[in-house]
Each structure stands twice: as structure tokens, then as C-alpha cells.
């Protein structure tokens, strides 16, 4: 599904990612953990194609093809979805209008017919139930005046509707109370299937109580310092990130077990 090889990324001349290797196979859930400033969000943004970040070295293959050659919208249409850490507000554009435009862009790319307003609203209604969103959010402007938790749920709603192949959740748990966290996790778990993969970026282990990852990677100072199974998340929760930095052979972890 996704192969990242020796990825180096800079923003405004400053190197953030200093050689990332990561392989995500179809159906897997990978958690990326790490302290603030370790490069977690940079990795998400680069995968989604944010041009503010410059890839200086390395490559990324998605479904066997060079991902870096694709524009952000082409990546989205080919199934890459990023649940933003800070979802953007768009005044005057209703949630439904926005999401319908997105879904139809994706559908057209896949050779499917566009959904009309009625069909779309039906679909949106169903999906809103999954994330426990009030129907009034259909006509509210995208993220405008939403609370932190509502914005995150809206991201998950979009994911439910767009049905991506590779979903990246960037700190989706931040700002969520425990009930909202459970709803979000449940939404993600329902979407888990053999041909869909997830990268869950989080600072805390909390989310991983509900979305059980296949692999956990610890990102420190732009490198993967340690990789392991889900138990790694619990160790981190107990001992903190300093413990990883003290590991003698940090940075050489491989994924193939």
C-alpha cells in the first residue's frame, strides 16, 4: 500500500524529517507516536501533498506508484485521506455542499456517476448517525463555529463518506472528551477492512485503547526511534518518551517481524 524510503523533508530550509522508512501494508493500522516537534504532523502533511513541505531526499510509493508526483487533489481522488489536526473553516459554504463536491470529485475520478443532491443527502444522513452528529450540521458552514470536538467528528464524517484507501488521522484525539473519542474510534474501527490502511498519528496512548494498532512507531527528532507492536504504546505511557531516547540502538528499527 505505502512504502516510505529514506524520506527527508524540510520546511523553510529547516530539516524536520531526517530519513524515515516505513511500510504500511493493506489492512494494517500503524500508530505514529512521539513528542511535540518530532515531525509527526510533517509526515501527515507530506503524505497528503502539502507543498509548503519540501522533500529533499527519499521516495514514497503508494500502490506501487510515485506518490510525490501527484498533486494533493489527485492523491485524494486516489484514496488518500487526511483527517486534519486543525480542520479549516470555510465561511458561507455548507458542510453538505462541500462534502458533495468532494465526493463527486472522487467518484468522477473513479469512473462513477455523480450523486445528485437527494442521493447525497441520504448518504450523508446515514453517515452522520455513525459519528453522532446532529442533522443541523448539514447546512452549517464548514467547521465555522464548531467546537474542537465537533470539528474532529466532522473530519471522521468526511472520511466515512469518502471511503479512502489510506486514511491518515493527525492527532484526531486531541481536544476530544472520552465520549467523543469513543465515537471517533468506533467510526474508524467500522471502516477497518482488508484493503484499507490507517496511519494514526497521536501524542497519547489513550486513542490506541480504542483503535488497536498493528504496529507502533516512535518518532523522535525526525527519525523513527523505535518500532514495535501495540504493547509499545503501553510502555510509552508508563515510561514517557525519554525512555526511548535512552535506547542504545535507536533509529535502526525495522518493521518486518
Amino acid at each position: 500500500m505505502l512504502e516510505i524510503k529514506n524520506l527527508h523533508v524540510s520546511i523553510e530550509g529547516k530539516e524536520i524529517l531526517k530519513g524515515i522508512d516505513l511500510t504500511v501494508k493493506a489492512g494494517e493500522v500503524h500508530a505514529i507516536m512521539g513528542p511535540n516537534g518530532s515531525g509527526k504532523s510533517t509526515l501527515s502533511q507530506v503524505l497528503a501533498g502539502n507543498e509548503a513541505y519540501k522533500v529533499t531526499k527519499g521516495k514514497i510509493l503508494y500502490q506501487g506508484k510515485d506518490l510525490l508526483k501527484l498533486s494533493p487533489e489527485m492523491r485524494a481522488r486516489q484514496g488518500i485521506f487526511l483527517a486534519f489536526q486543525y480542520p479549516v473553516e470555510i465561511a458561507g459554504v455548507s458542510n453538505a455542499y462541500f462534502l458533495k463536491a468532494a465526493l463527486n470529485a472522487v467518484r468522477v475520478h473513479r469512473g462513477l456517476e455523480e450523486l445528485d443532491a437527494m442521493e447525497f443527502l441520504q448518504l450523508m444522513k446515514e453517515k452522520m448517525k455513525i459519528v453522532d452528529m446532529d442533522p443541523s450540521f448539514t447546512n452549517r458552514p464548514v467547521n465555522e463555529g464548531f467546537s474542537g470536538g465537533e470539528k474532529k467528528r466532522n473530519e471522521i464524517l468526511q472520511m466515512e463518506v469518502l471511503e479512502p484507501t489510506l486514511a491518515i488521522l493527525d492527532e484526531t484525539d486531541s481536544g476530544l472528551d472520552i465520549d467523543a473519542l469513543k465515537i471517533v474510534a468506533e467510526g474508524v474501527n467500522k471502516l477497518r477492512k482488508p484493503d484499507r490502511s490507517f496511519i494514526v498519528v497521536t501524542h497519547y496512548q489513550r486513542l490506541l485503547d480504542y483503535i488497536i494498532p498493528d504496529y507502533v512507531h516512535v518518532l523522535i527528532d525526525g527519525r523513527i526511534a523505535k518500532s514495535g507492536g501495540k504493547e509499545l504504546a503501553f510502555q510509552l505511557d508508563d515510561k514517557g518518551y525519554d525512555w526511548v531516547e535512552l535506547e542504545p540502538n535507536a533509529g535502526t528499527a525495522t518493521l518486518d517481524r
Partner: protein
Amino acid sequence: MSDPKTLINREYKYGFVTEIEADAAPRGLSEVIIRFISKKKNEPEFMLQWRLKAYRRWLQMEEPTWPNVHYPFINYQDIIYYSAPKSKKDGPKSLDEIDKELLETYEKLGIPLEEQKRLAGVAVDAVFDSVSIATTFKEKLAEKGVIFCSFSEAVHKHPDLVKQYLGSVVPYADNFFAALNSAVFTDGSFVYIPKGVRCPMELSTYFRINAADTGQFERTLIIAEEGSYVSYLEGCTAPIRDKNQLHAAVVELVALEGAQIKYSTVQNWYAGDKEGKGGIYNFVTKRGKCAGNNSKISWTQVETGSAITWKYPSVILQGDNSIGEFYSVALTTNRQQADTGTKMIHLGKNTKSTIISKGIAAGHGQNTYRGLVKVQPKAETARNYTQCDSLLIGDRCSANTFPYIEVKNNSARVEHEASTSKISEDQLFYCKQRGISSENAVSMIVNGFCKEVFKNLPMEFAVEATKLLGVSLEGAVG
């Protein structure tokens, strides 16, 4: 992410020229020319005298320099003030007699004049260069007593109404361009809604400039008698030419007691090319008077065309409890300049006005909102709410807001809100990450920005306005 780039190819699909023989005045302006125009139109003496008074006043006036727009000196002697498609007879009596070329022109513009093809519920007056060539649905309107005809026809058939109201809202000496218009105006639309009548359909005028080097000087007069209602739409296009053309119109609205006038404009005159060559200078005076108590005048404008726009659709709130509204979207891209806004003059008690202005600047576009809210001493408990928002696309455009507020009554309440925002890279990236292309994202964001204005447009116009913004912004981002 690359910076939003200037618009590269802006397609103007109405830029064609109709090859038709024209009956035109020689270039230049003088009393002789004015007499020529008046004679061509076979006008009564009072009209000629009014024109001459306006002309003499105009000679003493100076072109205003206060608008925040820049253009080379206009040589008023180099303009052709009258151009009409040549017709074999005195004037077409029915559509069958109208030149085929003309009918085809309007077909191409999406305004088929054959009534049966018209959208049910919209009557059209088509003005081509200096003359009105057809007005549809006249008979049906006449059943209700509604008069909808060309200005020239009104001068002949309803001279008393014309005499009574012409210049009653915009006097000929009002300003430089209004004086010029009063001297040389050639046609336009005339609407009269009798007492208590709700006009059974939308009325619309479609203005088309065709001939080269011709100025278009039309005049619209709408009179809504007590308790009547009318919704009026106006659309405009012109061919692509590399020389600037002047359009100096005057619109006067009169709403008597309890009457309501809703006036909507989608202005899409040719805007010039990307270097700013050519395009229409749109210097227009539009004003309405809420003459009676409880009357209401509402202006909605979507300004996407013209090289330069200079207009301030205004309302004089004379009657007690009268209401004035101004909803505006002005878009400037490439080298377009706009200085537009409104004046709300509160004279009567308990008068209310609302101003919602949305300015969008892209490319090297320059967008200025200029507005005046004036509350006179007798306007007890007058209220105004003003909201001016500017949206910038790219970093070579500019937006300015000049709100003037003069309040001479302590019980008045005037509110003003303003904002300036940019389409951020974050917003674009968010949309693109959902599969939406840059262009669709920009057009979606811009339409969202304009929503409060568009919802005041009649349905078909709102759809057209949305499309127009999309086309105008094509290529505005990289």
C-alpha cells in the same frame, strides 16, 4: 505551495460584434449633436430644452477625480453619441420586423426575444447601442395597467409621467456623468406600476453595446405607485475591443407610499484584457427615492465586468418607516478597478437601511467600497447596519473601504462592521485534500463569501451570477 497566480486566460464569451448597418451621429458633442439626437427621436420640445440645460450645465462641470480609480483622459469629442441599427421603417412594429442579425445577437447572448421562448415570468426590454429594439410581453402587462416600454416610447406616449418624474431623483446637475447623460441619453427603459398592482412578472432590460467608439447613455425610470410592487433585472454585455468605451447611465426609482421596488443588476461589460487594454468605463448614477411612507427600495448588484466601475446605487429615505437596502458583490481581476458602494440618506422618521458589500480582488484588481450613511435631524430613530467584507486572492490586488457616516439625530443607531480576508493556502489545501481542484475550491470559497448577497437575487440571476464568478476567476490561482 505556489502562490496564487494572476489570471491567465479569462474568457469573455460575449465579446463578438454584430455586423449591422448603423445610423450614427458624427463624433463629438455640441448643441448641434444634441439637437440631432432629439430630432432623430422626434422628441417634444420639453425634452430638447431639458437636454440643452443639462448640456450647458455639464460644460461648467469638472470630471470628478475623487474616485479611487485611474484612467487616461477621456476625450469627449471623440465619442459617438448616437448609434442605432438602421431599420427600413420608422421602427419595428413587431418582432417580425426586427433585423434577423439582431435577433440572432440576442439569441447568442441567451436572451431570445421571441416571447414564446422566453422564460415564463420575465418580460425583456432589449437595448442595442442607443436604442431599444424590442420589449416583450407588453400586452400582457398592459392588462394590469403596467407600462413597460423603451424610454423613447414613454416620451411620446406618456409625456406627463416623464415630465413629472424625469430628473426628480437624479437632477441633471447632480454630477458630471449624470449631466452628460441627461444631455445625450438615447434610450433606456420606462416602467410604471399603477396603484396597488403587484407586477405579474419580473421585468428586465438587457443592455448591449455593439458599435465601436460609441458611448452608451441610457436612462431608466421606474415609478411604483402606492402599494405596488415590482422586481426589475438588468444585464449588460459588450464586444471585446481594445479601445475603452464609455457607459454613463442614469437610473431613477420612485417608490410612493407602501410601494416596493427590487432592482437587481448583473453587470458583465467587457473588462479589458489581462494587461488592462480596452474594456468599458462604467460610470453610472443610480438612485432611488422612497418618497412615500412605508416604501422600500432594494438594490442588489453583481459587478464582474467593466475596466472601471464607478457607481453608488443609493436610496433617499424620505417617507417615514421607509427601508433602503444595498447588497453588492464587486469582483475585480486583471487590471480592473472598481469604486462602488452606496449612499443611504435618512430623512424620514424610523427609516431603516442595510448595506452588505462584498468586494473580491484578484490579479492586479483594485476594489474600493465607498459608502455614506447620512441621518438628517428629522430622522428620529433611524437605523443603519453596514457590513463591508473584502476578500483578496493573491498578493498583487488591493481592497479599500471608505465608509462615511454623518449623524445629526441622537436617537439614530448606526452600526458598521468590516473585514478583510484572504483565501488562505490552508483553505485551498484543505479543499484539495478532499479531491476538489484549486479552481473549484476558489469558486466555492468565493461563492460562500458572496452568499448573503446572492440570496437576494431572483433565482435565475443567482445561478447566472454564480457561474459568472466562476468564469471570471478561472485561472486566478496556480
